[in-house]
């Protein structure tokens, strides 16, 4: 009996779902434009960039780390993709590969500094955040890259499903969530991430190569930031060196709202997806209602504290 009770979803994992449903119902009563397939598709499209970044952020936070450099990595990735394709005339696919590679390398640098020099992730990524920002500005001359080839904008295109037009990029985001969900749940490397986050020393003693796991996690997160860069390019239709400046805190917000513990070892990417959607639904719903955007910031702040408080409360009881 007790065993069964334990397997019921905890308050921490149900809380975000409830918050999302309550918010959705509330907005449906407040704006006649909210409750439509088209609007939901729009919300998904608006969160696809931060949504993919938040997957990488979740992986890192699961190891009890944190990544402040994610938005800047994405910005550099999007400049590399667009500049390589537009200025050097590289084939768009090749330019995308270069962008993904650059972002993965940034992840590798973060991972190497965290494991080999044993610096705290907060400090490492604070440093790389500034370094990557500066490189992005210097490399782009702080200029937006325009006139992109169509191939780079594919994930911003839509197809119709009945009355609703759906953006290809949102499908990519959802597919990545599914993939990482499966990876974390059902594969040995995925379980190792939880083990390292729970107790690094214990994980090492059971024979897990913890350093290698950490470096791989940071690299995988970097690769995901590269995908986010591609999505950002497709969504905006430009390479914008000023982009990504708030994505680090936005993604951490989503991860925390989704019930993942900042102390590592506990959390899911499905929770993060819900966290991302909560922010997106509030932004969309409050705009539809005609509420000034500063209230959206206020609400997000309150929700973050509620989410962490719930997590602390349930964790202590368990």
């Amino acid at each position, binding site marked *: 009996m007790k065993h069964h009770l334990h397997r019921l979803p905890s308050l921490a994992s149900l809380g975000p779902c409830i918050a999302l449903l*309550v918010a959705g119902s509330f907005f449906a009563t407040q704006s006649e434009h909210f409750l439509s397939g088209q609007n939901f598709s729009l919300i998904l499209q608006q969160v696809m960039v931060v949504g993919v970044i938040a997957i990488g952020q979740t992986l890192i936070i699961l190891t009890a780390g944190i990544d402040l450099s994610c938005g800047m990595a994405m910005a550099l990735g999007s400049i590399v993709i667009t500049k390589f394709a537009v200025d050097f005339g590289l084939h768009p696919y090749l330019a995308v590969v270069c962008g993904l590679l650059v972002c993965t390398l940034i992840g590798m640098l973060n991972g190497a500094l965290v494991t080999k020099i044993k610096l705290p992730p907060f400090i490492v990524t604070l440093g790389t955040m500034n370094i990557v920002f500066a490189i992005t500005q210097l490399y782009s001359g702080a200029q937006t890259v325009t006139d992109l080839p169509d191939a780079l904008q594919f994930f911003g295109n839509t197809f119709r499903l009945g009355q609703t037009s759906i953006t290809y990029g949102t499908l990519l985001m959802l597919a990545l969530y599914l993939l990482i969900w499966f990876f974390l749940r059902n594969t040995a490397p995925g379980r190792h991430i939880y083990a390292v986050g729970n107790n690094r020393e214990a994980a090492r003693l059971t024979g897990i190569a913890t350093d290698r796991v950490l470096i791989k996690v940071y690299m995988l997160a970097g690769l995901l930031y590269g995908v986010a860069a591609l999505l950002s390019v497709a969504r905006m239709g430009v390479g914008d060196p000023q982009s990504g400046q708030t994505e680090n805190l936005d993604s951490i917000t989503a991860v925390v709202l989704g019930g993942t513990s900042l102390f590592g070892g506990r959390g899911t990417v499905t929770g993060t997806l819900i966290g991302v959607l909560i922010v997106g639904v509030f932004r969309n719903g409050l705009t539809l209602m005609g509420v000034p955007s500063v209230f959206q910031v206020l609400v997000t702040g309150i929700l973050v504290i509620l989410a962490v408080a719930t997590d602390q409360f349930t964790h202590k009881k368990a």
Partner: protein
Amino acid sequence: MKLRNCIALAILTTAAGMVAAADQSIVGLITKTDTNPFFVKMKEGAQEAARVHGVKLLTAAGKSDGDNSGQVTAIENMIAAGAKTILITPSDSKAIVPALKKARAQGVMVIALDSPTDPQDAVDALFATDNTKAGMLIGQYAKAVFGGKPMKIAMLDLFPGHPVGIARHDGFLQGAGVAKGDAAIVCMQDSFGDQAKGQTAMENCLQKNPDINLVYTINEPAAAGAYKALKAAGKEKNVMIVSVDGGCEGVRNVKAGMIAATAQQYPLKMAALGVDAGVTYAKSGKKVSGYVDTGVTLITDQAQKNIDSKDTKFGLDACWGKK
């Protein structure tokens, strides 16, 4: 069960909402940020005009200066809410263009307020200060005050590449009769229109050349920072600061003698004209086009011969921000 109730309630009230929403036209206003008093005043102007015409006004803003993706999201949400006219102060003059193109393709009239897009015809119309003229007014003023006395100029600019910053900078030099690259320009620094950064920039300029006697500033916060730096160096009496904006804080600084002259612009008017245009478009389907100059006035308490200016009393009446 509860969930089902919730959904049922949601559907019911949605239906009710649909009936209630009459044919009220909707205008969206998207500013760079929510916090700058310039945009607060702009919002006030739009709200007042919306009230007079009985249209619904939606407002949104980027999180910070340069937050393009936040502005794109706001455009999409406003179109979803049924806005037929969008007024926007573009944070990034180039990056916003594809999103505006999409909006216009859906029949939305887009008017840029305060800052142009690049290219300028990416919007239906631009309601803004003539920033070249604003720069020129304070340049001419400085030239009149200096007479033939040699100038040693520090220029506290916005940041590289922004069209407004370039227009004011070039206008000032033109008005002052100083060629670009002239030896009279002893220092150029980016202030980002920010007081703290303006102060740092001025400190660095003074290090470079302690004989500076004329300071051009992109806006009044940067001017306030420059004044602080000059005061700390004991040079505030002999150096003239000129600026652009006409915010209440800035005009008070003109009155106090910290800033010699400022070129005042009118954000409230930009937004009010924008809402008016939105109403006309909703009623008759007629779009505005081209550039509308919302005016600029030189404000100073030390009027110069042959230079048109108004005193700070006029400036304080017409200023934006906290009176």
